[in-house]
């Protein structure tokens, strides 16, 4: 059964697996990507459920399914969301995502296969962060000063902390998770004093293999000397 008048059609999904490292979660953690078309117009790929209250979130399988049940799986029931142009049962919809989790792509292959980079951006007020401590014994940092020693470029003269990490680099996912935890705890109720977000950034460079597939430009004009 197809439905052409649907508001949103979901035509792709991908789950990216972050490296298995201790102290992030009891099990593996993921980032979810979605491709959808709204009223027939395809939209660029985007991240799903990647932040809560202006703070980055890594998802466990359970958290992802729970979040889907709260919105998108309900939308497939009333037909306002289709999958590949077809109406689908909510159980089948969740099964698609479970399969995506089972076949999750390691984060370091995201650039190679999909031309995307997964970045985390963290910003905060240094004054509140300097004395922050980390209480996780598996953290690469015991306090925020060690973060500043490892990433001196993050300390800005304006009194701000600004750090961006590529999650495909070794140890970045774990470092980002601990820095975010420390930052969130340090600022307490001053929520605006610490923000962190994930960004899905298309890689601008052309793949080398594509360079020789370009059609030659046909023109009668004589090139000027």
């Amino acid at each position: 059964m197809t439905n052409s008048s649907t508001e949103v059609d979901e035509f792709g999904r991908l789950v990216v697996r972050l490296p298995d490292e201790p102290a992030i979660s009891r099990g593996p953690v993921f980032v979810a990507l979605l491709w959808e078309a709204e009223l027939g117009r395809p939209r660029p790929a985007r991240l799903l459920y990647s932040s809560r209250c202006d703070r980055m979130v890594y998802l466990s399988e359970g958290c992802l399914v729970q979040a889907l049940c709260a919105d998108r799986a309900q939308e497939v029931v009333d037909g306002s969301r289709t999958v590949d142009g077809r109406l689908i049962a909510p159980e089948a919809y969740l099964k698609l995502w479970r399969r995506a989790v089972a076949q999750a792509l390691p984060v370091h292959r995201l650039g190679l296969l999909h031309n995307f980079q997964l970045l985390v951006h963290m910003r905060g007020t240094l004054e509140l962060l300097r004395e922050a401590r980390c209480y996780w014994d598996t953290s690469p940092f015991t306090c925020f000063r060690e973060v500043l020693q490892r990433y001196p470029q993050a300390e800005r003269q304006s009194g701000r902390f600004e750090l961006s990490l590529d999650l495909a680099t070794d140890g970045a996912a774990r470092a980002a998770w601990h820095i975010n935890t420390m930052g969130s705890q340090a600022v307490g109720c001053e929520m605006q004093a610490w923000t962190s977000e994930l960004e899905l950034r298309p890689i601008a460079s052309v793949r080398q293999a594509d360079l020789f597939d370009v059609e030659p430009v046909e023109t009668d004009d004589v090139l000027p000397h």
Partner: protein
Amino acid sequence: MSYRIEYQWAALRTTVAGEARFVIAVEGGDNNIGDARRAARRWEACMIGSARQVLKQAVGFAASCESEMLRPLGRRCSAEAYIRRIRCLIESHEQTSGGLWFPDVNLLPGHPALSFARDMGWPSEPTSRFGCSEVHVEIPPQQRELVFQLVDRFSDLRAWHLVKVDGLLGS
């Protein structure tokens, strides 16, 4: 941490303007309320509306299965299995024996459904539940099926805001 256990499910079916409408009654309760031998439980209306509306509400509840805050028969259950259970319930044509439902509308003060109730000529009076102010709306027995109009118009209202169930055998 406490969690909810569900023990029994029943679909009370009625037909409104040629379309099947359901009140899904669930016998359930918290795992840590009761005595040492038996957790407390009671029947209550948990989902209400057309098959599609009920299924949508079931998907919302299924989120809690994934976090294990909701455990049918005290066991872990996937979200998909819970949705399937409710789908089977509304698609099976077995009549639940003895069960009945009746409107018992209790709304928060200022809820837009109150002006709908006023337009319908239904009397209302302020009341309180668990220390919170509510407005009780009286729907005449001969108009009881109009409660489904509230479900259609106000998707934020839950079954327990609108109806009560009775006559179902406890486990």
